């Protein structure tokens, strides 16, 4: 049932021209940024070579690329999550799911998996682009893997949060702006806190992504993302149940 709902979500996404447009534009931005970083690396490579322990191509090209993608996704994910439940409610299609023989768990996990699957396709081009460099040089696979896992966890947490906000309202636009406000708010809390040990840093998903970005697989960060995602998924299920209680 979860798979069925996820596939329906994907099918609807791919049936809309706007999805293809976003996909195309984003690939263009990623590719442009990748080439720009690569050019900068080639320019400073002779100077780097004189250093005792120079940063490799993965650290100078891949890490900034992944960080840019993380920032872009923060703006972009709310545009996709807004539809998840708010639009179902507005188009009255939620009744179809609520009267079908499945529980709120199926609906929420199905939608989550569907959108996450789509976003994975969207960000899959990043490692592919980096791996094209493997033709001419050797890459730091550990760093790349940490970045991929980090970006996956980060995206999952964005989707869970966006879906919860989408479940609170009937207007997709409000859901988008709400999710964007929360995500940007968390980000600002992170970059706004001056002290390095300020507890505000711990709130922000992007702060936890930074250690992945530097190639560090910290179980505390993994736990943060898992808890963040799971809590918002549970809250969404609760909200869907409340839909039956409060109408």
């Amino acid at each position, binding site marked *: *049932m979860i798979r*069925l*709902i996820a596939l*329906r979500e994907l*099918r*609807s996404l791919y*049936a*809309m021209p706007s999805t293809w447009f976003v996909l195309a534009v984003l690939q263009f931005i990623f590719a442009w940024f990748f080439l720009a970083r690569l050019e900068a690396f080639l320019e400073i490579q002779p100077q780097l070579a004189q250093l005792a322990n120079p940063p490799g191509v993965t650290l100078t090209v891949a890490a900034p690329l992944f960080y840019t993608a993380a920032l872009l996704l923060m703006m972009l994910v709310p545009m996709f999550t807004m539809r998840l439940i708010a639009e179902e409610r507005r*188009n*009255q*299609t*939620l*009744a*179809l*799911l*609520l*009267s*079908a*023989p*499945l*529980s709120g768990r199926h609906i929420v996990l199905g939608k989550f998996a569907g959108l996450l699957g789509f976003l994975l396709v969207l960000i899959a081009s990043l490692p592919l682009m980096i791996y094209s460099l493997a033709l001419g040089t050797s890459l730091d696979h550990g760093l790349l893997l940490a970045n991929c896992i980090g970006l996956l966890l980060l995206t999952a947490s964005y989707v869970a949060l966006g879906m919860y906000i989408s479940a609170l309202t009937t207007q997709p636009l409000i859901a988008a702006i709400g999710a964007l406000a929360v995500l940007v708010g968390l980000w600002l809390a992170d970059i706004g806190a001056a002290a390095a040990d300020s507890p505000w840093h711990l709130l922000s998903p992007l702060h936890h992504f930074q250690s992945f970005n530097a190639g560090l697989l910290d179980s505390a960060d993994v736990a943060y993302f898992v808890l963040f995602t799971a809590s918002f998924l549970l809250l969404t299920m609760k909200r869907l149940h409340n839909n*039956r*209680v409060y*109408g």
Partner: protein
Amino acid sequence: MRTHILGYIQLNLQLQPPLTLSNASPEITLSARNLSRRFGSRQVIHDVTLELKRGEVLGLLGHNGAGKSTTLQMLTGCLLPDSGAIDICGISLRQQPTLAKAYLGYLPETPPLYRELCVHDYLTFTARLRGVQSTAVPEALAQTLQRCGLDSVRQKIISTLSKGYQQRVGIAQAIIHNPAVIVLDEPTVGLDPTQIRDIRTLIRELGNAHSVILSTHLLNEVESVCDRVEIMQHGRLIYGDSSVRMQHYGQVSGFIISLRHPPALNELEAIPGVSRVEQLSPEQFRVFHAPDDNPGSLLLSMAAQQGWQLEQLTPLHTTLEDVFVKITSDETVKTGALK
């Protein structure tokens, strides 16, 4: 062919209620007892009790805002009642919602359509969603498309269809899994007269094998489709009977007459057999009489003798509209008196 047969068997196996044997009266597919529901401080549904048998079409009739849609939402599990219990094929909707909902087909007021999908994909999705095995889907799909007259538009995107076709797709999703109970909320809204006739025939046909409950404010729909009627007003069921008997509710005998030179009112009342006369306009009267004693011919001859110049004599017909208005206004008077 073999896969088709297998698919059919699976479909049937799956839709057979597993608990019918233990159920005392297997005929009853849907029973709702003492449902009530409030939104905030406003009590919307008061103590509604309904029962539906297999092979029966029940019409839920009422004004706008009477609570019909809310009741249907509760019956389909989209809304939880504050109190009361609902059983579908003997399975409690509150305790085993997923199991009970497998026997339900529901068309809400606005058809729940994913407009960006094509009819074929959408109906395949709803069939799978309602628990039809993937091997049985093509068979169920073909049958439903044919039943709802959607064969010609199966590859079209739903948003490009006319409102009538969208409504049919909505009905198709409610019946594709061959449910025991079909709940339709105003199924013929937005259809043209031919489509309305087709859909009514379809509902009637469905009603022979399944149980159908439909809400409507169209009285002729009740007349042509429903076996039984429940009238709802202010969240209460105020009248329930077979639709044939409802038409006889409060039936009156009489006629409307127009006279160019009318006599005094008491002269008309004095005619033997006339029980009561109402003046509608200076020249028009409504004359009531006992059902078995028609003073029509006497009235005609008197009109000729006295030179009243009769222009019109029309027997009174009780339409369902009249009955409905009478029942609902009777109830208003009753509740008013209680207060």
